[in-house]
């Protein structure tokens, strides 16, 4: 996120796109809800579904699945036509404006309405509300990124914010909501194929030198590694022989689960380190029992880049070890000794080699509610919002994109578009929340949400079971009939391994971010 959660309270306009915030980030949604209620903030929700937040929205744009770029370009088209853009900001802080103008010019309201299904009036209203307010904030989540055009979507959000000058100030910005409690931290720490901690490229000789010195090795690999989806493909091809998985359950969370299972079975060595015996763990050659979050100390970085300390509340369950200890053991046994007495030692090392985390020390975290990076030294107060005076790269470069249709549009054989997501009661693949009595009671099984008109056409009643079939698999689910979802679109969740919706989803990935699309075409028949 470019801005902090607290800044939501002062925003005048929220543009929420591709985020079912109430269910996925409840404590952020409440800021939006309260700003709308108490301070008359305006809320624009762009989502094909009637999500809970839409009930409170000033304007709900039900744009078609995957038409985000067209929608955003369309808004920018209107803004430019009306002269609502932030001329001074564009001049002082950005570059490549002509490129944006060139592309956006093509996205006339007529064209955009045709692609998105959103009428001209609503487009205009949305553009006006967003552009004209002093503090407008874009909020998005996986509904934006999980597309083959994910990067295009993200760029377009940034374009819109820069065009209107809604970035670099408090209570504005582009705010992607991170789905898991330490996605941000995992990225910051370099659990990515191309960067060390603090986004220092593995291809940069200087960075390599810093880490080689700190780690006492001379031969660090300078070639960018594989992303998760590429690892799975590599395993299936036989290029990847060993996969060591810590605390993830890709068999349920990855698209095209059968493909994942085939790939994992081909490995010579699959190590799964987790707190429960997950579906992925069942395929492993070695399963290592880890301690849970409550049984260890360490830091987590939330979606607003706030690095916080979590403490050991109970001793590790007998027979388990914290993940960091297990890693130390494996490395030491493999001839690379790792000796840390506690996570504090590791954080010290992170402070030394990660400029953005240099000032985020254990001593400071212990007595605070965390620090937001960048925090380059121990005297630095942290950075609640980014891009204050300039963007990371200097001037903010517009990078307008063209709309491309989804990877797998519905057709005669598979006439429905399946989208996947979460419900508020369950988390990710359910390994944790499904063990909680109330949460499992509230949402015990996957259902397929369907528009009443579709249900009537297929002669389905609420609760009746259907076979949902895609080009990759078939899953049987009960139908939940609801007008919250548009016609020809169906929705389900990926929390339930026994009804693994990801057996259906498609593994088409965004060429840059390598994020899979998940959305796919399905057919539905009554059984």
């Amino acid at each position, binding site marked *: 996120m470019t801005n902090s959660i607290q800044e939501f309270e002062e925003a005048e306009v929220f543009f929420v796109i591709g985020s079912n915030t109430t269910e996925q980030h*409840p404590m952020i949604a*409440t800021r939006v809800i309260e700003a709308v*209620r108490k301070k008359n903030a305006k809320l624009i929700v762009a989502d094909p579904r009637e999500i809970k937040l839409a009930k409170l929205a000033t304007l709900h744009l039900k744009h078609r699945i995957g038409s985000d770029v067209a929608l955003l370009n369309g808004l920018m088209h209107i803004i430019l036509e009306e002269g609502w853009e932030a001329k001074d900001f564009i001049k002082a802080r950005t570059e490549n404006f002509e490129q944006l103008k060139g592309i956006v010019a093509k996205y006339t309201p007529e064209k955009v309405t045709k692609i998105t299904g959103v009428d001209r009036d609503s487009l205009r209203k949305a553009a006006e509300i967003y552009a004209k307010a002093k503090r407008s904030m874009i909020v998005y989540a996986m509904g934006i990124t999980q597309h083959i055009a994910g990067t295009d979507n993200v760029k377009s959000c940034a374009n819109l914010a820069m065009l209107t000058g809604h970035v670099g100030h408090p209570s504005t910005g582009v705010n992607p909501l991170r789905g898991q409690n330490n996605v941000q931290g995992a990225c910051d720490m370099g659990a990515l194929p191309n960067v060390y901690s603090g986004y220092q490229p593995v291809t940069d000789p200087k960075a390599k030198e810093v880490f080689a010195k700190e780690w006492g090795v001379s031969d660090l690999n300078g070639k960018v590694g594989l992303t998760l989806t590429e690892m799975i493909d590599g395993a299936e091809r036989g290029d990847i022989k060993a996969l060591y998985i810590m605390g993830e359950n890709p068999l349920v969370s990855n698209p095209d689960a059968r493909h994942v299972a085939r790939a994992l079975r081909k490995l010579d060595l699959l190590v799964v380190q987790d707190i429960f015996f997950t579906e992925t763990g069942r395929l492993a050659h070695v399963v290592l029992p880890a301690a849970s979050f409550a049984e260890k100390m360490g830091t987590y970085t939330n979606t607003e880049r706030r690095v916080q300390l979590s403490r050991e509340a109970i001793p590790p369950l007998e027979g388990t070890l914290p993940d960091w200890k297990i890693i130390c053991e494996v490395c030491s046994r493999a001839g690379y000794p790792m000796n840390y007495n506690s996570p504090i030692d590791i954080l010290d090392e992170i402070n030394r080699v990660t400029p953005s985390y240099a000032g985020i020390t254990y001593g400071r975290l212990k007595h605070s509610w965390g620090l937001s990076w960048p925090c380059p030294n121990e005297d630095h107060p942290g950075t609640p919002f980014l891009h204050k005076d300039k963007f990371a790269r200097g001037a903010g470069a517009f990078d307008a994109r063209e709309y491309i249709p989804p990877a797998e549009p519905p057709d005669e054989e598979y006439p429905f578009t399946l989208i996947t997501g979460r419900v*508020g009661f369950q988390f990710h693949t359910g390994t944790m929340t499904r063990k909680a009595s*109330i949460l499992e*009671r509230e949402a015990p099984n996957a259902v397929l949400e369907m528009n009443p008109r579709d249900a009537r056409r297929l002669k389905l009643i609420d609760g009746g079971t259907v076979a949902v079939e895609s080009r990759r698999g078939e899953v049987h689910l009960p139908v939940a009939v609801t007008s919250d979802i548009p016609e020809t679109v169906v929705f389900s969740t990926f929390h339930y391994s026994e009804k693994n919706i990801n057996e259906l989803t498609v593994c088409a990935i965004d060429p840059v971010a390598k994020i899979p699309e998940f959305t796919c075409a399905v057919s539905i028949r009554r059984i």
Partner: protein
Amino acid sequence: MKRLKKDNVVSFLKEMNKKEKVFCPQSVDGRDLMFMPLEEGVYTGNIGKTTISAKTVLFPQTEEILSFTEKSISKTIDASKTLLFGIRPCEMKAIQFVDQFMTRDNFIDPHYQSRREKVTTIAIACHEPPSDTCFCVDAGGMPYLENGYDVQLFDAGDYYMALSGSEHGEEILANKYFEKGDEEDKERLEEIKNKALHSQKNSPGMQKAIEILRENKPDEAFWEGLADRCINCGGCVYVCPTCTCFNVYDLPSQGGHIRCRSWDACVHAGFTRETSGHNPRPTQGSRLARRHEHKLKFDIVNFKESGCVGCGRCSDTCPVGLGAIEIIQELNAL
């Protein structure tokens, strides 16, 4: 009437802690106040208002109630002598309310009761409202207690004035840390009480809200409109000192299995959903209505008093303004 010097509170509690487990409002790290065992936290003298009420001591978030082996079933009772120090009058009133509920119709909740019987209470009257959301006076209560306590303390600056409310309270006041007061203490007490009674600014209008509910004024649309912003967290129920709904579930355990119960919340759909899938309370609005009608309508039918003691915790914890105060205000606006 006796006196307890504030400087002596910790020593007194430490001495009591040798005989019974002392719980009082403390913080782990100088931050949030919680009822916790004396040895676990830091007693700062700030009694304040704890995030969750003292009900956690009598009715824990999760507890084992039965254990099953192949051939036998036994009740798990986990109760020891406990001193609740620093309990606020509204919470004391809540405990009295819950006492009635837990023993009604001669069905006595054995787990609650076994703890309750072993609890001694030292209440601290509020000389000023511990928080902006306090509205006990509006809720028909008072910032001090007339009865139902063992000892009640009144803040008189650098000491507390102490009244006993039971035989056991008398015994406690015989402790060496309680000193004799002077002649003027009685007057001072009345002064404190009077000041306390008038220092509470928050008065959302509960009696009128009760009337409005009795007249069935709010319709479905009223509740559904409010419920549009409910995030279904259950927090209002969990922090409420008189909410006692629970969920029962069985878990495997060494050599058999155990039956546990844990706090449950009527704002959840699954709370009333039947096995068939039918739900008599199908909408978020109907559940929100239930939560508040229970306190302000049905409890009055059953117990002649509302189940809301005006502690304001639900308004503190609700992130979208659906606590008792806001609901009462909304009802008043009808």
